[in-house]
């Protein structure tokens, strides 16, 4: 087939726009064409906005006054948030509690369930689908559903507690329980994701290692401690880092269950940022919040990478 095509006699690279289009130049040209659209988008929707956001965070701006008339405030927004704002520290604390609680529990839970599912067990795909269902569900829908399930007077959870002889709990209207319920929703939603990733990790561990260990007389617990867990470190690193970053941005669940209440007890950084920007029209202060959280996320990510990597090597 290919031979049928007649190759024209070579006349040297064609000239167009005063440039000799050697194959190499042609390729470079097309490479630029290929990256131009994505890069333009990246500049317009990422790089530009980051710079603009940083500048806004140093100003007072309500988005109604023209950009040129923003009031310069220097670091005032940052100073206010870090020293005077009573809600921001609480929002930070809640956000970190949410991330730490959810990720820790899910690492343990996800790994345990993955270990169980990795044994010779029947209907494996069925179990995997069931555990994975909430991952596919919109967080907003789960928030609505759990708000209903955790209602004090007619929620299924309280009906269950009562049938066990435990007193009804206020859950979402209780100052301390509300955040725990929100963490529980996040655990429920994402445990399936951890399971799937750990299962893939487990399947990547060579069988020979276990066989060799068994020959040496290692029991199941020893095999877990000396083979499985150390070899799963990179997987853990991945899920912990990505999920911590994700969890620190929580918005939907809180928005639809408590709206940050009662009395800001479940206020998170992104929700507070949303309120500050779109309810109080304080774009500068809201942008400053974004950059503070961003900086913290960067630091946490680096620390996590360092910690887990060191242990993997050790």
């Amino acid at each position, binding site marked *: 087939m290919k031979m049928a095509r007649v190759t024209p006699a070579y006349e040297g690279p064609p000239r167009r726009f005063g440039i000799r289009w050697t194959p190499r130049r042609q390729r470079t040209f097309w490479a630029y064409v290929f990256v131009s659209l994505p890069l333009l988008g990246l500049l317009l929707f990422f790089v530009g906005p980051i710079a603009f956001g940083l500048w806004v965070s140093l100003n007072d701006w*309500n*988005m*109604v*006054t*023209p950009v040129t*008339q923003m009031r310069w405030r220097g670091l005032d927004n940052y100073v206010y948030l870090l020293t005077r704002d*009573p*809600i921001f520290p609480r929002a930070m604390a809640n956000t970190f509690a949410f991330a730490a609680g959810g990720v820790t529990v899910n690492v343990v839970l996800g790994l345990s369930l993955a270990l169980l599912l990795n044994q010779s067990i029947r209907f494996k795909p069925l179990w995997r689908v069931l555990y994975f269902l909430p991952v596919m569900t919109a967080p907003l829908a789960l928030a609505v559903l759990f708000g209903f399930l955790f*209602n*004090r*007077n*007619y929620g299924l959870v*309280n009906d269950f507690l*009562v049938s066990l002889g435990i*007193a*009804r709990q*206020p859950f979402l*209207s*209780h*100052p301390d329980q509300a955040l725990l319920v929100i963490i529980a929703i996040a655990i429920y939603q994402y445990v399936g994701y951890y399971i799937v990733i750990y299962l893939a990790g487990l399947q990547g561990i060579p069988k020979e290692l276990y066989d060799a260990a068994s020959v040496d007389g290692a029991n199941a617990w020893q095999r877990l401690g000396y083979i499985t867990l150390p070899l799963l470190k990179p997987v853990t690193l991945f899920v912990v880092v990505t999920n911590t970053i994700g969890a620190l941005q929580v918005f939907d669940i809180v928005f639809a269950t*408590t*709206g940050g*209440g*009662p*009395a*800001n*007890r479940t206020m998170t950084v992104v929700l507070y940022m949303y*309120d500050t920007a*779109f*309810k*109080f*029209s304080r774009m500068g202060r809201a942008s400053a919040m974004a950059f503070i959280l961003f900086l913290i996320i960067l630091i946490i990510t680096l620390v996590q990478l360092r910690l887990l990597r060191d242990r993997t090597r050790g």
Partner: protein
Amino acid sequence: MTHTRTWTTIFSGLLLLAGFSFGQQTLNILTHWGEELHRGPMERMVATCEAEVGVSANVRTVPFGDLFTTIVTGRAAGIAPDIYHLYNLWLPEFTGEGGMLAAPPQEAIDHITAHVAPAVVEGISAGGQVWGYPTEVNTYLLIYNKRLLEEAGYDAPPSTWDELKEIAAAITQVDATGAVTQVGFGVLPGWDSGVVHPFASLLFSNAGEYLTEDMTATAFDSPEGIETLQLYADLLENGGMDMSVAGWELPNGIVGMVVMANWWRATLRASEAIDYDTEVGVAPVPVGPSGSQSMTLSYNWLWSVDASSASQDTAWEFLHCLNTEAEPGHGSPSGQFLVEALGAIPSFEYDQEAHAEALGDFFLQAFVDSTQFARPEPVVAGGQEVKTILQGEIESVLIGATDPATALRVAGVRGDDVLEEMQR
């Protein structure tokens, strides 16, 4: 048959096109009215004045919760409407520096001030300027379930806070499993107006103030304010109130009393669990220990015109048509819509007179009467933020995380900061 229909379709399509390209001026209107139930009456109201003024009006409806953001964000090229329907608390936000609202023509201002109550004029003003035609007035009163009160042994609603506490405690019922099946008094946490407006109405009825007279600082951090929050704390303690049953459940027949606004009437009438005619009661806000008379808070909505609109004159002409009587005694198109579709109280006295019969309904009559002594929600830059701060602190007391005195002190200091900053 098929042919006729085809030709009709094409013909009307052409007409429609002609209407678009050669037709009259179009006014774009943004409002939170006109969802589902009210679309028909809304369109009829608009049609009256479209014919009268010779314009075509294009009404866009967004839910109340989204209206503020829609307005703030809508100023981008091409999508800012000509006419807004606004909540008066937002006025400072839209009229300050780089303001986006057009001041009404002098005739309009004269007409408005001549025909609405002084409290309404105050409500729709900011910076000493009237900003448009007032529409609905809302005030707060004690709405109660007559049946629940009677079952608890009371045939009259409370007129003082002590009575309120006593009756509320008597209504509350808890079943064997600890579930609250019925509660005496309900609040509306999680929503700024739902928390702050009833609180302010109770505060006014206890001779307290929300802001100082010159509106440069908060005034709720006062002995009267602390007494008001203490009322909530007492109700929680004596069982008259429970945070697991919100005031929203009054139409479900399981809440005895709520301080709530007249716009709730539609929900109450639609309720199956409580009979509007025989079981819904409405009474003045109970008077606190430091107060001498029942007071209430009112807030307003108004039609305003965008300052960048190319059709400002037509827009004001259109609004004038909506809000004035074509014939004396018949009321305005707007008044007609407010009363008949929404069951709301119109601002103009001629509308109140024209619809005296409809407004004579026991429920609305009580609210109409209260507009005579109601105090407008203070319209001031930063007002929304002060409200949210106070909401948070009131909720802190409701969940038992802090005491009334501390809550109001914190809210006062932070609120003062906001107001001071806004004045700079």
